[in-house]
């Protein structure tokens, strides 16, 4: 009976891995195969990757720019905000935290429609990369705030601050010298999450983009609809290569921050 249970567990786990992995591997292999229909026997080539670069390099650079912009905003807005929320426990602070976390629960499509309703007629802004950046900041900021707040909640911030205050440190020095260094693991985990999510963001970006502000996932959607399978696969491969190291680093940083929280 226990052997049967174990066999069942192994079978389900194996099927899940196959389901998640086989299409990703197919995509990676197809991206470097000369002809998908004739299979691997048609030979390996980097021609499709080169073709992707020719067609879509601008989307890769734009996604990187926007991800770095979202990171800068998360650091400048999110870290001080987490500090303020940690220092001001109480109903209002919880309500603000819940409100700014809305983009985690409300579908991106609805948020994008809201932004378009209010700023869609402001043309200079509407057609610029800034418009997309705003959407990405909206979506990624809660992750930074939560990651940093979790660390602040675990390290007994009031006691550390009290000690610093007794030694005569003004509030801004306590923030820079005590709070930020202590929150570093949370900031790192939050930063990697922000960059990874920004590079992959589609639901908001699809509504906010213009033909001149296509990001990587928008370009991917475009290639899935209109390019041959090898080009779409090669483009997906480029995306995997960009996002996988980030994902690994993100999980490592999150586990490390968890260790600090405990």
């Amino acid at each position: 009976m226990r052997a049967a249970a174990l066999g069942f567990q192994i079978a389900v786990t194996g099927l899940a891995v196959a389901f998640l992995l086989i299409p990703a591997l197919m995509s990676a292999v197809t991206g470097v195969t000369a002809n998908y229909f004739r299979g691997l026997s048609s030979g390996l080539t980097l021609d499709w990757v080169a073709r992707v670069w020719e067609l879509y390099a601008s989307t890769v650079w734009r996604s990187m720019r926007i991800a770095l912009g979202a990171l800068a905003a998360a650091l400048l807005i999110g870290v001080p905000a987490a500090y303020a929320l940690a220092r001001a426990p109480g109903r209002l602070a919880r309500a603000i935290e819940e409100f700014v976390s809305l983009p985690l629960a409300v579908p991106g499509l609805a948020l994008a429609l809201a932004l378009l309703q209010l700023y869609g007629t402001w043309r200079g802004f509407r057609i610029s990369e800034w418009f997309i950046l705003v959407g990405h900041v909206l979506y990624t900021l809660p992750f930074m705030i939560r990651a940093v707040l979790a660390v602040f909640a675990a390290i007994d911030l009031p006691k550390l601050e009290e000690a610093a205050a007794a030694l005569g440190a003004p509030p801004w020095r306590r923030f820079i010298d005590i709070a930020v260094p202590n929150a570093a693991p949370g900031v790192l985990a939050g930063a990697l999450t922000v960059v990874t999510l920004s590079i992959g963001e589609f639901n908001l970006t699809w509504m906010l983009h213009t033909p001149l502000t296509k990001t990587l996932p928008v370009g991917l959607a475009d290639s899935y609809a209109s390019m041959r399978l090898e080009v779409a696969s090669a483009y997906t491969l480029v995306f995997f290569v960009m996002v996988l190291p980030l994902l690994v680093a993100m999980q490592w940083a999150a586990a490390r921050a968890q260790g600090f929280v405990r």
Partner: protein
Amino acid sequence: MRADDRFTLLAALPLAIFAGAFLLLPLARLIMASGEGPSGWALYGQVLANPRYMRALGQTVAVSGLVSLAALAVATTAALFLVRRRFFGRSVLIGLLTFPLAFPGVVVGFMIILLGGRQGLMNALARDLFDARLVFAYSMTGLFLGYLYFSIPRVLLTVMAAAEKLDPALEEAARSLGAGPVAVLRDVTLPGLAPALVASGAVAFATAMGAFGTAFTLATNIDVLPMVIYTEFTLAANIATAAALSVVLGLVTWALLFLARSFAGAAVAAGG
């Protein structure tokens, strides 16, 4: 006001400006826009009475619910295996299972096309082995599998974190008292995991309710609510209806997550 409190307010100021300009005002505008159509606020009544929208809502809820249940079943089975057993390549396996976390919905849609599309793996296998045709990517099955694809890793991580905190002595005690594997699972393991199951199930459900990229890539005629909103907005330029449906969808997903968090309580935070 004390210098400390002034500094706390100053630290919150960038967030207040950003969230005010790009969250509060746009959401307020969206709600206003939903009442600015020819029928005013009566639009909400019309939307709720419209069979096409209600069928879309029903289908969205049905597929999201089924996906959550399937993801819970698969991920819990795999999580218990991965947490309890130590074997060579275990951490690589966990890495592989969580790898789709960073995939946007469009990429997930493409994965399903590679599996079940006209030029997909399953169709090629069916043709070569049975001289049959097997295309499911562009149907409800494809949508279900796509949502399952991005739900499994999310649920798995939460359930694994909770399973690591379960006390193995409890199961041992139940076993020594003569409980069979099914009874142990039903009476000890699953109740211990319940908060994590509720929390991750709710997240999977809410994510599936709002998922747009996958349905968009599969380019089917499946009426799930996000696709209806998109079509109303871009093709029909029916802005008031798109806004009203967005408000309904946003409220439903937010309320659901809020309820799940209150139900599962502090354990949700502990379980991730």
